[in-house]
């Protein structure tokens, strides 16, 4: 049963991007996945529920935009004239960009409920939900609020080292306990190829994400290498998928999007 005039009624697939660990690249993966899916002709929304550290607006160079209301709720921010990617984030609601959101759980939960119910997304092929690290208020509230809309599942992001994998193992348990399907694990920051001499150094070790996927019996979506062009692109809010197809991270990011698309195609057939 879905409420008749639900703002999520026009959204075909909902997927969450999770990690137990901070700083592993959830927002990066959310952004690049949205850009890749857009490149494949899909309409994508990103819901940023990281209330303390909202990174998504800047990654699309719309950090100075405001949010407007309409009859059905909040109008998401479109990243360009194309209107194929739309965003919602607390970042758009802050008076000043450096304002800290110093809220305890209950206040965070209330806003998340609003974000899930009151954004007028319209018709979307994919809604990507970017989360902060952890297994706490934001995660519990988001999963509870999305439950009636049957999310496709979650992508878990880790870096290769054991310290990161150690936290992501717990995130896998969170998914199991809350009935959230794991679409797969991404091993981010996996190796760095020196642009000067092409030597590959495993700065954050290698293989931990793949091993975890094997151990947990979930799909492994691939290794994404460290790529200064990717970091630069995110800093400037540019479309990495469009502008840097020859960059070292491109094949891996395109592959992740393809796996998601293949998964949804299988679902419909």
């Amino acid at each position, binding site marked *: 049963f879905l409420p008749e005039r639900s703002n999520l009624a026009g959204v075909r697939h909902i997927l969450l991007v999770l990690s137990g660990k901070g700083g592993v690249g959830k927002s990066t993966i959310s952004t690049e996945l949205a850009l890749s899916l857009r490149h494949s002709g899909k309409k994508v929304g990103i819901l940023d529920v990281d209330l303390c550290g909202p*990174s998504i607006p800047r990654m699309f160079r719309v950090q100075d935009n405001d949010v407007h209301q309409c009859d059905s709720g909040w109008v998401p921010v479109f990243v360009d004239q194309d209107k194929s990617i739309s965003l919602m984030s607390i970042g758009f609601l802050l008076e000043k960009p*450096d304002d800290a*959101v*110093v809220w305890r759980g209950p206040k965070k939960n209330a806003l998340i409920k609003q974000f899930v119910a009151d954004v007028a997304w319209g018709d979307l092929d994919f809604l990507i939900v970017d989360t*902060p690290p952890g297994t706490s208020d934001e995660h519990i509230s988001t999963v509870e609020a999305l439950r009636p809309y049957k999310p496709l599942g979650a992508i878990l992001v880790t870096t290769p080292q054991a310290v990161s994998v150690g936290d992501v*193992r717990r995130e896998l348990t969170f998914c199991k306990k809350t009935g959230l399907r794991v679409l797969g694990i991404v091993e981010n920051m996996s190796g760095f190829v020196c642009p*000067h001499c092409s030597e590959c150094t495993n700065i954050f*070790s290698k293989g931990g994400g793949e091993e975890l996927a094997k151990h947990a019996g979930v799909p492994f979506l691939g290794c994404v290498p460290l790529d200064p062009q990717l*970091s630069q692109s995110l800093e400037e809010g540019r479309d990495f998928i469009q502008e840097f197809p020859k960059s070292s991270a491109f094949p891996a990011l395109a592959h992740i999007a393809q796996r998601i698309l293949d998964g949804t195609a299988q679902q419909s057939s």
Partner: protein
Amino acid sequence: QVALLDIDICGPSIPKMMGLEGEQVHQSGSGWSPVYVEENLGVMSVGFLLSSPDDAVIWRGPKKNGLIKQFLRDVDWGEIDYLIVDTPPGTSDEHLSIVQYLGATHIDGAVIITTPQEVSLQDVRKEINFCRKVKLPIIGVVENMSGFVCPKCKNESQIFPPTTGGAEKMCQNLNVSLLGKVPLDPQIGKSCDKGRSFLSEAPESPATLSYRNIIQRIQEYCDQHHFHEEKII
């Protein structure tokens, strides 16, 4: 005599990094006993209370606050020179609670960690504002993952580019100290994963030099701003 308190309840990394995975907390008449790495380094973390590495702590704010209170009240640290509190990212329950619960005693200050890019700095500015809001002094900022020198050709790459001037510019703008910059060194991750001391394993690394300089500056700050301890209620 150092105590390390890990209040990252959902993602407790300290036990692994200290080589203490699998250790359990013991109770005695005087409270919970920290787990000792060495005679003069004791550690407490929710990690020691979990029986499996797969166990998830799926708690809302109030329950996390309760455990943090217990850590501060029930752990028998003994006489210590430094209590270091490792926190999760954010400006929420854990951060508010630790500042509130330690309000009766004196907090020397906070060390704030960032990487060089704007995506990180924009969150760190919020953290600095949080500290100012709750009147937590800021000892300074550390710029981590600051550049990488290729072991083969020795050229430096800025993997996380400081497109808006890095921590240096931010510190200038916000009038906080830049304690130092730590370069990327693959050995750091390796040592942490093995639970060994990077400083001991790679004494010649430029990162070790950076860490030592930063630590010295923190100690100098604490010595300069030394207050007499107030009676704890």
